[in-house]
């Protein structure tokens, strides 16, 4: 135990914040460049099928469904993003 650090005011650990922000920034960047969706090969197929399912209920644009695999703490997380169209009045 480091005595001095015991007395020093505890600062928040910002590294975790940096990591979380980077995960998002990098995922966005990769989508935006249309590249390195380095995920498993089933991703495009999964995306197509999800899009078809969503379209049974809501009319969405081709790019409305995004699927990513992220690695976090050794875990693989399948991340899906489905953008619904702006709520229009009178339709």
């Amino acid at each position, binding site marked *: 135990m480091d*005595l001095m650090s015991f007395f020093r005011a505890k600062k928040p650990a910002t*590294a975790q914040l940096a*990591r979380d922000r980077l995960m998002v920034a990098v995922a966005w*960047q*990769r989508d935006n460049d249309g590249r390195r969706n380095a995920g498993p090969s089933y991703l495009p197929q999964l995306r197509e099928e999800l899009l078809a399912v969503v379209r049974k209920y809501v009319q969405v644009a081709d790019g409305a469904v995004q699927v990513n695999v992220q*690695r976090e703490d050794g875990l693989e997380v399948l991340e899906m993003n489905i953008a619904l169209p702006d709520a229009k009045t009178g339709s």
Partner: protein
Amino acid sequence: MAKIIVTTSGKGGVGKTTTSASFSTGLAQRGKKVAVIDFDVGLRNLDLIMGCERRVVFDFVNVIQGEANLKQALIRDKNNDNLYILAASQTRDKDALSLEGVEKVLNDLADEGFDYIVCDSPAGIERGAHHAMYFADEALVVTNPEVSSVRDSDRVIGLLSSKTRRAERGEKVREHLVLTRYNPARVEKGEMLSVKDVQDILAIPLLGVIPESPSVLTSSNAGAPVIADPLSDAGQAYQDLVARFLGEERPMRFMTVEKKGLFNKLFGG
């Protein structure tokens, strides 16, 4: 067959030139015939780090434009007979390079029997960086544990897999992560991204971790790559990196805080 390696990062000031100098010196120390080329046209620096700035007569642009031949422009390193430096032009602008010109120089170097050609990229993702990476077989992606550097490295990794000759041929550029200016004390305090954080985000194999070290500055003051300093932690980390690059197994060092004495434990900062 000459192997072409680009040292790249996107962001400036992260340690590309420091890495190019030490990496090429380390390869040469292990008997390889190496040429290291400064692609930072207009902002020549590698010559200073290698300590050959007073021997630059002709440069990369002179060779490309046919004003000098390759043999005249290659500067032999003062300590390693099989290491040569090709300086960047200080007076021209970035448009002085062309992909065809770069290709010709690389081919001529390969014909001269060089084992490795190290291309020290300028910052950015514009023409200069593109020229430096386009013909690469392998890439040292130099990254600092800091948000903007990591994001820029990710961009560069994307470019390596799309905007290179290998990518166009459906082949892969072999990527290596070089994490530099690493400060284990700050990592332990949660103030700095860890090796694992950066690896998780960039997802390319780690070749080496170079600690933040005062000896990098003192070495560059003296015009000697830090790898030539056997007492320097950064120098030793670069030695390990080169050995790993050549296929040796070396455990990662300098990734944890050195144990301090009791006095320092109680009162140290």
